[in-house]
C-alpha cells in the first residue's frame, strides 16, 4: 500500500490531468484531421452541394463536435501555460484567463449553432 507522502499535501494533481488531456485531445484532433483529408481527397473539388452533404451526415457532425471540443480544451491548457509563463501580475493573468474561458465557452455555443442550428 502506498501511504500519502508529504508532497501530496499541496498537490491538486491538475498538472498530470492537463498533461494527459493535452495529449488525448491531440490524438483526437490528429485522427479527425486525417479523416478530413481522406474525405477531401475522396470527394474531389468542394462546391456548396458537396460541402453541405458532408455536414448533413450526423456521424460527421458528432465527430466535428468532438474535434471542436478537443480544440477548445487543448487551447485552454496551452493558453493557460502561456499566461502562467509570461503574465506575472496575478490580477492581469486572472483577467486574461477569464477572458480566454469566456471566448472558449462562446465558441462552443457558436459551434453547436453552426452544426445543429436551424436554418
Amino acid at each position, binding site marked *: 500500500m502506498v501511504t500519502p507522502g508529504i508532497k501530496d499535501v499541496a498537490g491538486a494533481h491538475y498538472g498530470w490531468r492537463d498533461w494527459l488531456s493535452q*495529449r488525448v485531445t491531440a490524438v483526437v484532433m*490528429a485522427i479527425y484531421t486525417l479523416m478530413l483529408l481522406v474525405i477531401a481527397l475522396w470527394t474531389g473539388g468542394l462546391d456548396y452541394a458537396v460541402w453541405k452533404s458532408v455536414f448533413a451526415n450526423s456521424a460527421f457532425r458528432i465527430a466535428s463536435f468532438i474535434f471542436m471540443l478537443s480544440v477548445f480544451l487543448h*487551447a485552454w491548457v*496551452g493558453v493557460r501555460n*502561456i499566461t502562467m509563463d509570461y503574465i506575472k501580475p496575478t490580477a492581469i493573468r486572472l483577467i486574461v484567463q477569464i477572458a480566454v474561458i469566456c471566448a472558449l465557452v462562446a*465558441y462552443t455555443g457558436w*459551434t453547436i449553432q*453552426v452544426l445543429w442550428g436551424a436554418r
Partner: protein
Amino acid sequence: MPALDRPVVKPRPVYLNLLAIRQPLPAVISILHRVSGALLFLLGIPVLLWGMDATLSSPEAFAQWKATMSHPIAKLLLLLLAWSYIHHLLAGIRHLVLDVHVGIDLQSARRSASIVFIVALILTALVAVRLW
C-alpha cells in the same frame, strides 16, 4: 584538481537575452510550437468558425466567402494558419514520440526537429500552390 582551487564563477553569460543567444534547432521548434499554438487560438479558431458558419448557411454566402478568401491578404492569412496547423501538428507528434522515450538522444532529437521544420514548410508550400 582539488575542488577549492577551481574558479567558482565560470565566464558564462550572466543574462538570458533571447535575441543574443543562438538557440539549438529543437529549441526553435519548441518556441515555434508555442507561437503557432497562440496563432491558432487567436486567429485560427475564429476564422474556422466564421468560415464554417458562412459556408454552410447558403450558396450565396458560400460564394461570398470564396470571394472574400481570394483576396491576396486573406490568402496570406490562410497560409499562415495552414503553416501554424501543420507545424503544430507535426511538432506535437514529435512530442508524443519523445514522451514514449523514442529518439530522445541528442542526435535523434536534432534530426527529428529538422524533419518537423522542413516537412512543415514543404506541406505549407503545397497549400500555397493550392491557394494560388
